[in-house]
Every structure is written in C-alpha cells, then in structure tokens.
C-alpha cells in the first residue's frame, strides 16, 4: 500500500509489516476506502458542502468517539482548512456537550419496543449558533443522531436539513461523510488493537 494511505497512517501500519501484508489481500477495499476519503474531503467539486464544513463535521464526528489519532487528524484538518480555524473552538466545545454512549434509540412500536433505550437528544448550544451558522448547526445535530442513535432517524430529520438550506444532494454527501467516518474510525481502532496484541 502507498505511504499516503490514510487508514494505514492513522493505524500506524508500517510497510512490510504482517498487517500490511494482510491488508494487501483486500487491496480493492483498501484502495476504495482511500478513494472514499478523497471523494469526501478532496472532491473534484465540493458543490454546496464547502471543505471547511466537511472538516468541521468530521472533527465533530470523530471527536464524539473519544480521543484518538483519527480525532486528532480531523481536528488538525479543520485547523488547516481555509475558513476552518475559526470554527475549531466551537466544534471542540460542542464535542464535549455531545459526548454520550450509543447506540440507543427507539424501534417502530411493537415487540421490539421493549428494547427501546432513551438517550441524549443533542442540540447545538444557542451561544455557538452564530459562529457555526444555520447550515452547520443542522449538520452537527444530524451527525450526532447518526453517530449515537441512528435508529431514531425519521423523515422529519430530512425536512430539518432541507429547511436549514441543505440540498438533497448535499444531504446525501453529508450522510455519506458521517457514515464513512463511522467506518474509518472503527477500522483504525480494530487494526490498532490487533497490532498491539501482536506487539
């Protein structure tokens, strides 16, 4: 794998190591996890989801998972993105307000209702709404839902994003970004755990 592979970098996988060789057996998956990252964070055309907003949502999502090399990576990315640095303090403060344990949420009424689990319904604090702006506020609230209680998602959540100025295509990219990071942070965590078990 190339030295630039983001998962290898974040998981600390050295070229020529045992795990490097194992990952090479799923080369198409590795290459396309990398292409997913590039398509989300270095898109040919960012459309109506600017790079600073992408980095802000990424720093929030990975930060909600707790401190890790992945969270540090996206925090640094936000700080290094044009128009991103002024958002950093607000994002860090919102991460602290949003941290909880998942997955929780409700099922459609019926036999599964017994498994319903209540949890935090996160809303951005009023004091930070001006610096973040309506569109990013809606994105963070939706991202928190996806990270911690995705089974609570409803059609009304799509309407809230549309009302905040998100386009339908923008909602697809936002959803992919949050969902992709939910994958990436877990692959990195899993590989780090395996590497440590072999050390």
């Amino acid at each position, binding site marked *: 794998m190339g030295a630039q592979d983001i998962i290898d970098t974040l998981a600390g996988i050295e070229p020529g190591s*045992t*795990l490097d060789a*194992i*990952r090479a*057996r*799923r*080369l*198409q*998956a590795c*290459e*396309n*996890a990398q*292409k*997913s990252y*590039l*398509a*989300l964070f270095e898109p*040919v055309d960012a459309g109506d989801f600017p790079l600073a907003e992408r980095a802000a949502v990424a720093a929030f999502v990975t930060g909600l*998972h707790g401190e890790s090399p992945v969270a540090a990576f996206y925090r640094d990315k936000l700080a290094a993105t044009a128009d991103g640095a002024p958002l950093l303090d607000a994002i860090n403060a919102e991460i602290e307000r949003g941290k909880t*344990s*998942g*997955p929780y949420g409700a*099922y*459609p009424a*019926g*036999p*599964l209702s017994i*498994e319903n689990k209540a949890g935090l319904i996160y809303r951005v604090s009023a004091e930070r709404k001006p610096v973040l702006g309506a569109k990013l506020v809606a994105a963070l609230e*939706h991202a928190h*839902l*996806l990270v*911690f209680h*995705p*089974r609570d*998602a409803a*059609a009304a*959540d*799509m309407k809230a994003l549309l009302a905040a100025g998100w386009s*339908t*295509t923008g*909602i*697809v*990219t936002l*959803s*992919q970004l*949050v*969902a*992709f990071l*939910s*994958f*990436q942070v*877990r*692959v990195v*965590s*899993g590989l780090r*755990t*395996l590497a*440590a*078990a*072999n050390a």
Partner: protein
Amino acid sequence: MSTVNPPVVFTQDELGWVSWIDPLPEAELTERHYAGLVDRARAKSEYFRLLVRDPEVLEARTKTDKDIFYNVADGLPRAERELAAAATSRYNGCIYCASVHARFASTYSKHRDDVQRLLDEGVGADLGERWNAVVKASVALAATPIAFGPDNIAELRRAGLDDAEIVDVINGAAFFNWANRLMLSLGEPSK
C-alpha cells in the same frame, strides 16, 4: 411515493426500502452516474439512485463493500463475514440491513435457525464459541465509544481465527456501521 408498511420485528424476509428524499430519476442518469452505480442494474433501486447523487463516493463505497464481502479467495468464510454484518445491524437497530445479511448468513452457513436466534433474541444469543466471538467483536466495535479491545482479539483467536480472518471481521463489522447509518437515516424499510 408508495405506501409504507414498516416491519416491526427483525426478519429474514425480503423487504423493500423507501427513500425520504428524492432519488435521481432513471431518465436523468448519465455515464458518470452509471460509473457510480458500478452495476448498471442498480439503476432500478431507489436507494442507489439516491446515493448516486454523489457518484464518486458511491462508486468507492460500493467497491469497498464488494471486496470486503465477496473476495473469498482467502480469509474468513463468507458466512461469518455476513454474520458480522448481521450482528452489527441487529445491534445498531437496522431492520433492513439485518434482513439482507441474515439471509446471506443463512444461505452460506446453512444454519438458518442460529441466524434467526440472533434476530429474535438479539446479540446475546448463544450461537456457539466461534459465532459468539464474531458477534461479540462486532458489537464491541459498533459501540460508541468503541469498546473493541484485546479481549475480543483473544476470544477470536481461541475460537480459531487467525489474524487475516480477524481483519475480515473488523472490516465486515466496521463497514456495516457505514451501511446501517445510510439505510436508517435516508429512508425506511417496507414489507
């Protein structure tokens, strides 16, 4: 939009899926979109015609998915990759994803009743040492904060998995944290 009849239990039956926001009409798909769909037949699916609004991301996501689950030249048997997907979906609460991957797990393992117990009883169902280890590892990885740790690795090894097979569990389980969140938040299943 069609009338939705949402399932209220986890099932191995075939379910439909209805989008809450507008997919691209099939007539508007260009070659760039077909590249994103990877398989042209996916143009018939409402879910993929929604995701193809960002074709580059969909193409990369689809190829990641296919290699993690379909590349069975070595590593973990397909049945257990599907088990990791089904267990993750059961734990996150994605009835649609669980239905698809429970069916695949049943098909490839020939242990349909065990798979059904995972759906009926939840991720604590006793499915034997090897499957229990895969389910437990998938659940630990799906938790936020992530609870996957050295005990999961040790348990998978005691159950007979080597490092390459453990990486397949990690990939399969991690991938469904991606898939579940799309399926749960952009639309809903319908019987």
